[in-house]
């Protein structure tokens, strides 16, 4: 199963899809609220909604194209380079994957906040666009703001997903991609729709928590596996041939490092255990390094979560109070300056230009 379903790919696609879905839902919500006078005329509303969907669709298809090219190139060029020292590359890629998964993992728990975040950002963006410059481009962007925004966002999230997917699955065979990508897209869209509908928020939150837990289980397993790969690389170097691929019995592993070893259930070759391996980092031959690595990973996760909670509750990191407050003050000052500039422009516009007929986008 692991050969056709790369779990980490699923989660990454899911997460990025969800983010794109949230943006679209936020935009649609804004339109419904009557932003841009969309509710004044059902025709305008319909047109704007269409804009949103068209923009998203274009962004999505460009992403698919980029992703396909990216992964295609990857597999046609990259695969052979690492063949000779497979273990060390697998170890390095696993580390890369762990880092990616870990960094985006906790953000997933804040997806509902992500919605809020995007509301702020989009509001800012639309505010700005209202005062976008003159000329061809200014006119165009004003007219199609509702298409451009989702286009750019979807494109960005998509490219992000491609890079991440590439990162986490450097070691996976090509056929392990399509299924998790499709599943991730479907799941992301479903959850995004539910969030738009304002469904049971708590239920969605539970879903996200479970998904995040799985994500970190995968991350811990990958990290442990990375250490295991590095150690196996050493072992293979000493032995002179990759004995670990010749079976699971005595002689296939370094007895000095062994914490446990069972002559079965090989996570690399045996059917069901491969799922176990993909989800929980199961190895039939654990080493001191892999066990310590696994536990350290979780300890680090706990510490990080504690730090982030502390920051959310208190507004600063432990021992970094003044630094954080300074950053906050800077940001407020920046936002304030921007608003003042916009207000100044608005006033100038109002005093010199009569209102344009097609001011559908302006507030």
């Amino acid at each position: 199963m692991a050969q056709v379903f790369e779990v980490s790919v699923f989660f990454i696609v899911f997460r990025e899809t969800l983010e794109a879905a949230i943006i679209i839902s936020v935009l649609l919500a804004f339109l419904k609220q009557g932003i841009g006078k969309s509710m004044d005329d059902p025709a305008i509303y319909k047109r704007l909604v269409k804009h949103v969907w068209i923009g998203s669709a274009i962004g999505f298809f460009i992403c698919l194209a980029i992703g396909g090219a990216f992964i295609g190139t990857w597999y046609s060029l990259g695969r052979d380079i690492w063949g000779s020292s497979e273990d060390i590359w697998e170890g390095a890629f696993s580390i890369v994957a762990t880092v990616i998964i870990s960094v985006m993992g906790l953000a997933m728990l804040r997806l509902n906040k992500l919605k809020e975040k995007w509301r702020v950002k989009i509001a800012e963006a639309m505010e700005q666009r209202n005062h976008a410059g003159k000329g061809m481009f200014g006119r165009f962007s004003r007219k199609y703001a509702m298409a451009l925004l989702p286009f750019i966002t979807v494109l960005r999230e998509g490219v992000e997903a491609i890079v991440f997917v590439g990162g986490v699955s450097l070691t996976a065979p090509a056929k392990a991609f399509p299924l998790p990508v499709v599943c991730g897209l479907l799941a992301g869209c479903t959850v995004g729709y539910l969030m738009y509908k304002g469904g049971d928020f708590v239920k969605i939150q539970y879903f996200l928590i479970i998904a995040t837990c799985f994500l970190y289980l995968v991350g811990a397993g990958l990290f442990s596996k990375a250490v295991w790969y590095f150690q196996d690389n050493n072992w293979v170097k000493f032995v002179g041939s990759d004995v670990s691929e010749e079976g699971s019995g005595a002689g296939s592993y370094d007895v000095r490092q062994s914490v446990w070893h069972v002559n079965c259930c090989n996570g690399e070759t045996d059917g069901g255990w491969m799922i176990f391996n993909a989800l929980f980092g199961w190895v039939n031959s654990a080493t001191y390094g892999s066990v310590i690595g696994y536990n350290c990973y979780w300890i680090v996760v706990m510490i990080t979560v504690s730090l982030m909670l502390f920051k959310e509750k208190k507004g600063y990191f432990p021992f970094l109070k003044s630094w954080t407050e300074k950053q906050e003050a800077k940001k407020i000052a920046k936002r304030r300056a921007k608003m003042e500039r916009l207000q100044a422009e608005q006033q100038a516009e109002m005093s010199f230009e009569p209102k344009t007929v097609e001011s559908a986008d302006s507030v």
Partner: protein
Amino acid sequence: MHFPRKRSRLLYDDHLAVTAVTIAVVIVVIVVIAGLLVCCVFCIGTSTLSSLFLSALSFRRSLGTVSPELGLDRPNLSDPNRAPLFAVFLAMRFSFLAGLVAASGALAKTVQYDMSIGWVTANPDGEYDRPTIGVNGEWPPPVIKCNIHDRVIVNVTNNLDEPTALHFHGMFQNTTSFMDGPVGVTQCPIPSGSNFIYNFTVNQPGTYWYHSHYSAQYPDGLRAPFLVYDPDEPFADDYDVDTYLTVADYYHDPTPWLSANKFLTLFNPTGSEPIPDNGLLNETQNYKWIVEPNTTYKLRLINMGALVSQYIWFEEHDVTVVEVDGVYVEPYTTDRIYITVAQRYTVLLKTKNSTSTNYPFMTSFDTDMLDTVPDDLMWNVTGWLTYDEDGEFPDAAVIDEWVFLDDFNLVPVEKEAPFEPDTSITVSVSMNNLNDGVNYAFFNDITYVAPKVPTLFSVMSSGNQSTDATIYGSNTNTFILDHMDVVEIVLNNADPGKHPFHLHGHVFQVVERSEASASDEEFVVYDASNPGTINEYPMRRDTVYIRPNGYFVLRFRADNPGVWFFHCHIEWHLQQGLALTLVEAPLEIQKWTIPEDHYAACKAGEPVQPVPIAAGFKTKGVVALVFSCIAAFVGMAFILWYGMSELKNTEHEVAQVMGEIPLDDELSDSK
């Protein structure tokens, strides 16, 4: 409008900061935790913890009983290096058990020394820090002191990374031959990390020493005096202070390493012995022996070196020899002592009335025993009879000729005419190369190779066959001695070097000792029909030198059953195999019981198969898996905690951005 002030906004820009800080923290935490865990794993893996624990335990124990100074019957007991001895006393433990009333009427005590033998960094000659083998964290090792008829218990814990064994040089070990110490002869080496008890009664007075008898180990520092006090000594009233002075050659490199890499190799075909780097007086240099004027000192001289004999003299002071190797002798006054490795001389030295001058005393290598004398070798070591610590310490005078005491002419107080031998063993010493290109030493063309099973243990297990010398192996050079026979050892030296020979378990009469031959081509060989000089009452001792290409004749009564090593005490020559084994009254030996810990030391040496691979889940696997699962669940609990924590409403922030409400700082400004 009133808006509650919000302190925090976790917006996109914050995420960068959060991420950066998180990554930094994560890296630090990973490093710290991984370091700790790795340390733990390694500690457990190498049992360092347990040995640390052991040493800590013995240290605590040794501090637990601060003992009264030994030799209560001799309150004027003084020691030339009091400061280190104080520490030594701290490390001792004396147990006063039910004693036996000895012939002298003194109450025999049990004297116990707990010795944790381990590496200690020291710099004896002030030139070079090196690991030395010390006891209880101190170097030099403690001086063993007891009264005659005391029982001595030495409780050894081997904290070295190599085996060891202790020999109590000169002790007769009557009925306790298994406590004698030489590895391969009377015991198996004490394995690293294990415990071993030496327990014997001392029924002989005088000056001895103890040292490692494993490999070429003792010159690395495991050597110290062993002093036995006797209230009935013949010169008891002739001195005021009892003290000792050790001399020794000294190597900067570990001697087993030198032996393996510089000495017993294809590239040293002439068998030239490693040249010492320095000499030591009482295991140090620039030694200032503080003396009182007009006082007679009983000074026990001990050569604890590995190779060279030494000349010892005290400028402007004569010394009177009263004891050699534990045998009281008629007083013999001389101005210079020649002392080979392992020999002891006890001398009386009377200090001058005046304290105006400090007098140098010298110990000087017998450079004839060195194949080459490097230019930078300081083969003279000077100490000072210090009458005035603030005075001058003059250089020693140069001397022109080596006139010294010939121990052959000393007369024991307890006089014995030369024995008539019942049996005679004639051996000839030679040195030659074998097919591996290494230079070996031979008794009658056999070089001693230690057997796997110590000879004494072969005696115990061989029943009636124990009287057959061939069962002890072809390279142990074993001779069987009948109980109470007078044994004669005739040794012809077919080697142009001086050799100090030592017999364990006995003192022997030095019946004859020839001069050196006139040239290296000729040998002076013993001829019973044409004997040389024989003294009326021959000297007795346990270590005696033979002259180049000469011979000596030794006689002793086989009244001490046991397995006794007879060997050249030059440590290098012992490594070359210059040794033979005397099995004395084997049927008597078989009546003894050897303690369990001595057998245990041998069991540790048994080659056994490695343990099977621990397949599947053993304790550590289960523990690891359980902890990993716990870590995963606790980690997920944290994620749950984070996921369920109150989500912040950012509605007002949107409103701010949309310009519908004032910004936060405006609020705070208006306050």
